[in-house]
């Protein structure tokens, strides 16, 4: 859809340059894909379980595979597992593994490798990135070569969601990150932190005909300018995370195609519900009403995004989509502010930082829009280090950034008093009750009802202003095939380069 609009705009622009035809036909075998990404540095790693930068994620997705994964439609699909099923009390999950999958070193992958992987991730001495979401996991029991039991300490009906994270790639029992061996479509060839990684085709890959490429190169760039120039100079074949404001200009280049994916990412304003003036729910409601969401998406995201309705977990089956779309209502906002004791408006400080493309821009548009309701917003721009420093999660009025998640995992991360990133200090007893009930409810219909109800509370009283969901935009040369839009928020089809192929000249 978004690509269609872009193509239309390009056509209207009247550039008379002949466009290369889009690739058609079956995927071709062979070729080298050079991928450019911004981010990464000396701390880059090949370790399967501690990916941090975007380039780290690109590497782990291609070297390793988890038990389950989120596909381009944000559906949870089996990968190395064939199935993951909960017990009646959802405290025990049984996972059946795919048979005949081999590691890059030729060894068969079995239950013992999976158990060893989870032991490595949850090593109390040295917990890896995924450990924080596995605190509910008590033990992994090997039943036979291809059957395991995950025993939990808390009933969790959505534990499979946790198993689908890219940072939980299955590695052999004797895994050593210096010899990065996994089951992924590509095997390690060479790697220089902060510069480049070269991976070659895994000829024994278990999925039919994949990967199509002979070689995958991931190149680090230090800024967006260099990245875009490299694409225009054909030094790379595909780049991830193009600034949305530059999309239309890139689209005018006939050699380049844009991958514009709608996502459930969100870039909220965060109001602390336990501090004045935001401890008054009417002030929070007023602030949500002053936002012209359409204008936000236009100015901040250049129109490449969807309007938000103050709720996250856009793709959750329980997402409260029946609630009316909140729109700008300055008169009502003024009324609410007057009721709350601010008849002449009020002054607030908004702390912002370039934590993500569009953050500082969104703050400026908000300040502009809030003026109409008598809200004087003073923007305080700090650098990212200061933002995530000691005062992070303490600012009264600030911003944050989240990737796509479903409701329950997101709540665990940011909306409970026990969450590691509860920016708004949200602590609503009824909400917590509903969330806990939803977590242990196996019946999806009932669970979704509970989620909808919990979301309604946040929609009415919460501390987030969720004005929109940015698209994820990537760009690639037209001879690259197999890239599809994806809702996960990860660039370039979730980095699944096993499906990518080179057409035409290669």
């Amino acid at each position, binding site marked *: 859809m978004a690509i269609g609009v872009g193509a239309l705009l390009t056509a209207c622009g009247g550039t008379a340059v002949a466009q290369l035809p889009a690739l058609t036909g079956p995927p071709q075998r062979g070729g080298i894909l050079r991928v450019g990404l911004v981010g990464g540095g000396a701390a880059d790693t090949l370790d399967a379980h501690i990916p941090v930068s975007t380039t780290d994620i690109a590497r782990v997705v291609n070297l390793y595979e988890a038990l389950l994964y989120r596909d381009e439609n944000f559906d949870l699909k089996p990968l190395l597992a064939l199935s993951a099923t909960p017990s009646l009390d959802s405290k025990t999950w049984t996972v059946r593994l795919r048979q005949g999958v081999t590691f890059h070193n030729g060894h068969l992958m079995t239950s013992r490798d999976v158990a060893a992987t989870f032991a490595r991730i949850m090593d109390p001495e040295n917990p890896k990135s995924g450990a924080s979401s596995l605190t509910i996991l008590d033990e992994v029991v090997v039943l036979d070569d291809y059957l395991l039991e995950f025993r939990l300490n808390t009933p969790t009906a959505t534990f499979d969601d946790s198993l689908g994270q890219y940072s939980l790639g299955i590695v052999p029992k004797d895994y050593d990150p210096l010899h990065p061996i996994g089951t992924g479509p590509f095997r390690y060839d060479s790697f220089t932190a902060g510069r480049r990684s070269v991976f070659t085709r895994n000829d024994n890959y278990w999925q039919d005909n994949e990967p199509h490429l002979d070689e995958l190169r991931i190149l680090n760039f230090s800024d967006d300018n260099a990245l875009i120039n490299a694409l225009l100079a054909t030094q790379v074949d595909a780049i991830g995370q193009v600034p949305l*404001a530059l999309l239309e200009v890139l689209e005018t280049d006939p050699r380049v195609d844009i991958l514009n994916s709608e996502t459930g990412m969100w870039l909220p304003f965060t109001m602390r519900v336990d501090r004045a003036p935001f401890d008054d729910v009417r002030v929070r409601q007023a602030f949500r009403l002053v936002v012209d969401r359409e204008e936000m998406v236009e*100015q901040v995201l250049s129109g490449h995004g969807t309007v938000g309705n103050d709720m996250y977990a856009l793709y959750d089956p329980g997402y409260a989509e029946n609630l009316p779309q909140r729109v700008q209502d300055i008169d009502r906002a003024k009324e609410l502010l007057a009721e709350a004791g601010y008849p002449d408006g009020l002054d607030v400080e908004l702390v912002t930082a370039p934590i993500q493309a569009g953050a500082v821009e969104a703050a400026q548009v908000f300040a502009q829009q809030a003026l109409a309701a008598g809200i004087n917003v003073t923007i305080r721009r700090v650098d990212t280090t200061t933002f995530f420093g000691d005062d992070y999660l303490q600012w009264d009025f600030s911003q944050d950034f989240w990737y796509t998640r479903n409701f329950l995992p997101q709540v665990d991360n940011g909306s409970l008093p026990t969450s590691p990133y509860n920016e708004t200090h949200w602590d609503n007893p009824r909400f917590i009750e509903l969330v806990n009930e939803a977590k242990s409810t196996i019946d999806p219909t009932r669970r979704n009802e509970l989620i909808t109800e919990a979301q309604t509370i946040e929609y009415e009283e919460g501390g987030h202003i969720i004005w929109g969901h940015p698209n994820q935009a990537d760009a690639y040369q037209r001879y690259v095939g197999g890239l599809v839009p994806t809702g996960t928020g990860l660039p370039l089809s979730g980095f699944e380069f096993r499906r990518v192929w080179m057409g035409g000249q290669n």
Partner: protein
Amino acid sequence: MTTIDTHSEPVTDTPPGLMRRIIRQRQAKIGLVLTGIVVLVAIVGPLLLPWLTGYTSTEFAGRPFQPGGMFGTDNLGRDILSRFLDGGLTLLVYAALATALGMLLGTVAGMLAAYQGGTLDSIIMRGNDVLLALPQLVFALLAITVLGPQGWVVVLVIGITHAPRIARVTRAAASAVITEDFIRASEMYAVPRWKILLKDVLPNITGPLMVELGLRMTYSIAAIASLSFLGLGMQPPTADWGLMINENRIALTLQPWGVILPVLAIAILTVGSNLITDAVARASATVEESK
């Protein structure tokens, strides 16, 4: 040539013809024209909005980085020309205020040190050395991080970091003057110290001070623009040249005007004021020689 008239107050003339000597140099003329253009744009620019471009500097004119209007739109879809016209005045005012503050502090400290000598001299000059050891921008970053990026903090910090450099020059220039006989004469007539400093010493060190003024003005402009670029000077959504460069640099290859206009303005301004400063230096040097 400074003379002493024993019948009245000491003569307070600036060296005759300094202004004329400056203007007579070609590079001064070029400098004045260059600086004049930018200053004019900065002062008149805000008055022309939104009449000239149709937009104020914070209004949205369209989507970001679009070619519409004379120079297109910036990273938030605001008209670049409007932002440019509105973005110079604060920079100039802050730079002027910071320079003035630095000149005031530095001159007073330098003259006191030179005139009093002894312990006060040592205290002032060693304090100076400590301040000089701190790189200006690092000091500014530190102060702004602690106190917050308000305008007065920027002015204060830049002014204070200028002071020691100006104080050194002032002290050196004043040391030569205070040994002159006319100062002794004034002292004998029990003229108050502040009057001696103000009426006898100051007029005789204007040459070097003018050079210093020009130099510090250039540095102030650069420092304030740098701080804005780093996000620690002017805060968005204020239009500001330094900030504009930072905001629009991601589109440098594709929609460069948002960067080019402010860069050009700052470059012309600094080159212009440098040329003037240079001319002042030459003019006052010829005055010295003719003494």
